[in-house]
């Protein structure tokens, strides 16, 4: 077969362009996420501002349905992103990851059912009540998102503490070896003790916090009892983070002080 006969410059150019287009299409998501650092798992929904304005200026079943659908879509996207964060955080304990997944999945299925209900509504009072339920019934942004962030942080504190505890073991072994060789390792030992105190303080701060946060419900948010729990955990994590930084600093100082 004489390929050269069929491969005119025009056909070659067309084929090459076709291949490049297909390759660019396949690579674009990866390139986009790599360059921007943003998730490519879902498409961001447009803001619901225009739907809200339409529902406000011309309230009708259809404008409220459009607003409800947009609001549900935004929350489903948020939930998908939260799920991705849970999946990407290996520091989460299996129990905590499962609990967060359950919260997310329950919210997703509930919102999908609510969207179907909104779409089937035929009266203004009914659709208005259902649209209100999109936020009030799930509290995706003010509760679920915070549950995910804070429980992740709680477990990350424990993960960091575990690594520093391992480091402390290494340092202790070095101190013991130095002392056995007749060296004065008192400075390193003092630094190590400060490191261990800081690790223990960090662990104590977040102990039991994740369970409290995971147990919160949208109803508790509406009753005003959830926010204090969330804020208390945030405060504990902030303090624990400071303790861990101290521990990390003391670890380096202890190593530097070894004879």
């Amino acid at each position, binding site marked *: 077969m004489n390929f*050269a006969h069929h491969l005119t410059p025009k056909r070659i150019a067309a084929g090459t362009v076709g291949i490049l287009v297909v390759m660019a299409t396949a690579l674009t998501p990866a390139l986009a996420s790599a360059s921007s650092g943003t998730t490519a798992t879902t498409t961001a929904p447009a803001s619901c501002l225009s739907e809200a304005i339409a529902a406000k200026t011309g309230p009708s079943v259809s404008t409220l349905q459009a607003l409800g659908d947009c609001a549900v879509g935004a929350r489903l996207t948020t939930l998908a992103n939260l799920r991705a964060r849970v999946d990407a955080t290996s520091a989460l304990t299996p129990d905590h990851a499962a609990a967060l997944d359950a919260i997310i999945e329950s919210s997703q299925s509930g919102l999908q059912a609510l969207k179907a209900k909104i779409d089937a509504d035929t009266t203004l009072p009914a659709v208005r009540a259902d649209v209100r339920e999109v936020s009030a019934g799930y509290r995706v942004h003010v509760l679920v998102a915070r549950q995910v962030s804070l429980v992740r942080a709680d477990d990350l504190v424990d993960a960091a503490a575990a690594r520093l505890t391992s480091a402390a073991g290494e340092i202790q072994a070095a101190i013991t070896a130095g002392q056995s060789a007749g060296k004065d390792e008192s400075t390193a030992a003092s630094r190590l003790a400060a490191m261990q105190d800081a690790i223990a303080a960090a662990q104590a701060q977040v102990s039991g916090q994740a369970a409290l946060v995971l147990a919160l419900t949208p109803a508790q948010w509406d009753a005003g009892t959830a926010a204090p729990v969330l804020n208390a955990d945030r405060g504990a994590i902030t303090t624990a983070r400071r303790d861990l930084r101290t521990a990390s600093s003391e670890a380096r100082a202890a190593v530097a002080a070894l004879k």
Partner: protein
Amino acid sequence: MDHLPRHLGRALAAGLVALTLAACGGRLSVPGSAATAAPVLGPVANAAPVAAPAATPVAAAADASAVPAASAPTTPGRTPAAGVPSALTPNALLRDISAADASLQAIDQALADDASAQQSEGSNP
């Protein structure tokens, strides 16, 4: 011109290999996989509260706990590097401290996400 078919064949084959690799790369980039650890930890592309811009890329931080644990401090038979205290394994120690620091970065990111969620109170609950 006689060589054109062979050259074009090679070029097309190379293109197909690249295309296959690109396609494989796309399939690997599923949520939750190690390949997408970086993207999912970046800012969420959403107007929702969790869309707050990430202060720093913390891809490595999220998986800090996935770093293999350091060997036990009393592991026998280790040979300390020259110039370092005996019984100290610098690589293991540095790996632990680095992993802890990475977790601290991830904590910062989680707290930033929480702050964004807090800001939605009253505006986009």
